[in-house]
């Protein structure tokens, strides 16, 4: 049986030396799940839930206004996916850590998370202690992404262009994006735009003419009322 570990170890130290709780942002479009997450995470003494957003856009503007340590993001967010939000959050300075959670914590999504730059992926079965652990782990700079099976990685790689395949391989190997850009002689911006392009190919999601927003989800869903 798993019990909630009442963590009190300091993650970030304030100037006065006392423990600063992790600033967490919850993003989910389902009201009951959002509330459940909010309450569960708020109960943890080392977390401070800054806010709860129900759309990717709302989450993005919230994160722009207030500094966030960790964003807990549902993969399926109606009109835009959690992967889109992850890319957007990772543009911020300083970029928050991102834990994606989804009913599908399988190989394809893990690979997409790697490309998008998420730090963790938790199955909804692990909604509870596992999610709390993952939030703490990514806050410490660890990665909590499941492994992508080699055959699947191979099949997914075939959908990409040759330079994208190199980036995909290096990202899967856990190499730091800055290092990848240096190795391949790319600017940070062009690496970023390639990651967008790869996400489109790997997710099969549609983009608007501007190219940026990823829409939909694996099972394309309706927008829920009240969100």
């Amino acid at each position: 049986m798993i019990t909630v570990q009442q963590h009190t170890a300091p993650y970030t130290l304030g100037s006065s030396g006392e423990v600063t709780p992790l600033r967490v942002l919850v993003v989910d479009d389902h009201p009951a799940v959002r509330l459940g997450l909010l309450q569960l995470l708020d109960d943890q003494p080392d977390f401070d839930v800054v806010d709860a957003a129900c759309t990717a856009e709302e989450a993005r503007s919230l994160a722009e206004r207030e500094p966030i340590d960790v964003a807990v993001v549902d993969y399926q967010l109606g009109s835009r996916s959690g992967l889109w939000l992850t890319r957007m959050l990772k543009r911020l300075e300083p970029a928050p850590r991102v834990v994606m959670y989804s009913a599908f914590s399988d190989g394809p999504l893990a690979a997409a998370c790697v490309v998008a730059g998420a730090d963790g992926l938790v199955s909804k079965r692990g909604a509870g202690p596992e999610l709390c652990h993952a939030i703490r782990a990514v806050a410490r700079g660890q990665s909590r992404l499941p492994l992508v099976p080699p055959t699947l990685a191979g099949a997914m790689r075939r959908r990409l262009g040759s330079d994208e395949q190199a980036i995909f391989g290096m990202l899967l190997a856990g190499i730091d994006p800055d290092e990848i850009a240096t190795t391949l002689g790319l600017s940070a911006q062009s690496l970023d735009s390639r990651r967008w392009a790869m996400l489109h190919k790997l997710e099969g999601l549609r983009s608007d003419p501007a190219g940026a927003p990823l829409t939909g989800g694996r099972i394309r869903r309706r927008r829920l009322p009240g969100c």
Partner: protein
Amino acid sequence: MNGDSSVPERPERRRYVPLLYRVAAVNALLLVIAVAVTIVVLDSNRASSFRIDAEGAALIIALLLVVAINVYLVRRVVGPVQALTALARRVDLSDHGERMPVADPASEAGELATTFNEMLARLEDERREATGRVLAGQEAERLRIAQELHDQVGQELTAVLLGLARVEARVPTELRDDVGEVQHAVRGSLEEVRQIAIELRPEALDDLGLQSALAVLCERFSERFGLHVKQELGGQLPELSPDAELVVYRVAQEALTNVARHSGAHEAELTLTPEHGLLALTVTDAGTGLPEGHVPGTGMRGMRERATLVGASLTIDGDVVDGGTRVRLEVSTDGRRSLELTGENGR
């Protein structure tokens, strides 16, 4: 007996004298009467008595000859009708292309055969359309149920799980085990809902393409049934229409399900190989093979229907070298047809 109860779909056929014999008999009777009348007339006109031996023999031989020619001619006319009856009885609309040979188009028999062939073509088209509509409806319905399961049931269960995690942290220690059990049950249900949704709708296919979707499918079989699937997913494959991709995926899914459930094998091999002008999917196992006189189940029959719709062919070999079963699907990569099987348009 005609009314054999083992063939319930065919009503009892009444016995009748075939048209050939009836026409031949009537003609022969007329000829006999004609000959008899001739003899009587000749007999009364002549003083000398009729020489039964010589003239009679000649007349009878002539009579037999005429009857034989008559039978031959009538058989030529009636033959196509009988062939048509036989074809109409055995024709299988899901197995396209069987037609009546038209010997002479400028004749009644030829016209009948041509009209019959046109009717067959029309029936086949209508059937294909109807099957396409049914399958598209089925896919749309599956998509809808998968979405409902995911959006409603799955989300509610997640919320319950989150609530339980909170409760667990607050209840006295002696109740924690009980809460843990409930959590375990909810987790199990959530997993089940996810599995059902995935089986209903190959979501990886929509997003990642055929090869990745098949890789995910194989992983899932090993995870769920302990069936190790050796995959050979080819290199660069020719692009298929979404309908054809869905058919390939569903056939692989059905074949692997059969391997997991019936073959007794713990290993299977799935290959996807481009061959000139077509893409071949094979699923082979080293299990017990198909029993003697095996009748394909509804699953495989459905697969065959789907295959026919996209112009693909499905063969099942129940006795490959090592005793197992091999399912092979060949999809033509040129001459695509769109039948909106994917169900996305049916919504």
